[in-house]
């Protein structure tokens, strides 16, 4: 139907839901046909039924819930630490150009250092305990947040800043009452984005030198050729990501009603 497929034409609520779900259904269907139909050897890829059974076993018999808890805590812990350092620094860099000139070249360089490459070094420095896991996530997130926040704050509408000046605002007032509230929704959006990346770092951190967590389960399952468990672990990560994304968006709607008003 040509009317349904026009550039930029919006799609209805229910149609959107049906379309979104149908891809999941198609995906699982293709997977089931490939595995249950015998087109792919079971050793390499478990079928969906086995995956669900393995997952159930993991949850009920092998305490996988506590692994999930450990991983979530690592992500959140490392990410919160990174945000506590990066957001204030980013705001300062965006507001004060000399501060930006001082930090920006180094941060831009550090941003490209792959967090996963630090894992061996961090094990050397911090052992294989929780500190090391938190540090991997911290390093992976902190530079990204700093740079993105600095750019966002630096792009605050000039006329709003000027209006505040003509109303008698001083420098600290400009930062507290214009730059921060003006960019808060965008900063929240940056945090949501980087939290997603933090999830990839935590799994890498857990693949090496770890005795708990989702990544640890995945690497153990590899030794046992338990592809069903591996896939279940990956799906759990995806689901947690989906939930945290949803929570973030809901919080933003609650915190920044003026964006939607």
């Amino acid at each position, binding site marked *: 139907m040509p009317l349904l497929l026009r550039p930029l034409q919006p799609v209805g609520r229910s149609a959107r839901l049906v379309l979104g779900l149908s891809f999941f259904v198609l995906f699982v269907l293709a997977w089931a046909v490939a595995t249950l139909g015998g087109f792919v050897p079971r050793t390499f890829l478990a079928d969906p039924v086995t995956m669900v059974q393995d997952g159930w076993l993991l949850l009920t018999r092998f305490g996988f819930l506590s692994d999930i808890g450990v991983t979530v805590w690592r992500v959140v812990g490392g990410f919160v630490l990174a945000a506590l350092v990066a957001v204030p620094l980013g705001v300062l860099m965006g507001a004060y150009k000399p501060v930006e000139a001082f930090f920006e070249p180094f941060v831009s360089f550090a941003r490209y250092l792959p967090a996963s490459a630090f894992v061996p070094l961090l094990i050397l420095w911090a052992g294989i305990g929780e500190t090391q896991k938190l540090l991997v996530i911290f390093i992976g997130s902190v530079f990204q947040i700093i740079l993105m926040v600095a750019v966002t704050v630096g792009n605050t*509408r000039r*006329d*709003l800043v*000027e*209006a*505040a*000046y*003509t*109303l*008698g*605002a*001083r420098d600290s*007032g400009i930062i507290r*009452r*214009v730059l921060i*509230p*003006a960019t*808060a929704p965008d900063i929240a959006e940056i945090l949501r984005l980087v939290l997603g990346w933090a999830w990839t770092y935590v799994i890498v951190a857990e693949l090496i030198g770890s005795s708990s967590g989702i990544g640890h389960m995945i690497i153990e399952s590899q030794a046992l050729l338990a592809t069903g468990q591996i896939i279940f672990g990956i799906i759990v990560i995806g689901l947690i990501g989906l939930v945290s994304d949803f929570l973030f968006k809901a919080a933003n709607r609650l915190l*920044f*009603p*003026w*964006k939607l*008003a």
Partner: protein
Amino acid sequence: MPEPVEVSIEGVSRVFPGAGGRAPVQALSPTDLTVAKNDFITVLGPSGCGKSTLLRIVAGLDRPSAGRVRVGGREVRGPGPDRGMVFQSYTLFPWLTVAENVAFGLRERGVPAAERREIVAAYLDKVGLRGFAEHYPKQLSGGMQQRTAIARALANDPEILLLDEPFGALDNQTRGLMQELLLGIWERERKTVIFVTHDIEEAIFMASRVIVMSARPGRIKSDVAVDLDHPRHYTVKTSPEFSRLKARLTEEIRAEAVLAAEAH
């Protein structure tokens, strides 16, 4: 009796440095102008004549390349609450409600909350937005946003009110109503007002003095007194005296607009 001088612009010029190896642009030739206390003047000129630059220099948002501006005897060194400004673009803080926007300057100065509420309510009344105190700017029309911006500037009780084409983005009907509203407030409260516009009718209707500026580099071409009685009713726009002024200013502005168009 003549009022004392409130604003004196003394040999103010502005040269913008050329970007990327291009020649510097002289936006404003050395300009002298004085504005009496509680006078309402409009600065009229084609776009790119430096009228906004001049206003921004008075506001302290831009620095003159030479010369100086004195307000109430003190030299302007930066923006301050004594010079309230209304911009052409909508500059309400989108994260604050209408009432919070109007209270912004008061809060910044540490006015106690109870007094703040009273002042805000009074100014929202004056601009006819009493029922919209809790709305966000996004929920308002352009005219309502600019009325809020005027209330926000006035609530701060500045010595001078600077307006940079505040009604430029509004449709004709709304613009006419806004002119009457602002003029009404001025007739009741008297403040020193500098109002920049490219609209000839607006320039005459609002002001007791119209300063006509020439095309770039901007300079003052003529200084025309408007002797229409106050309070002014919108019907004055069809009076013979108004038409005569309009004809004269149209001639002056047209010559400049032609020059400006050739320069671009």
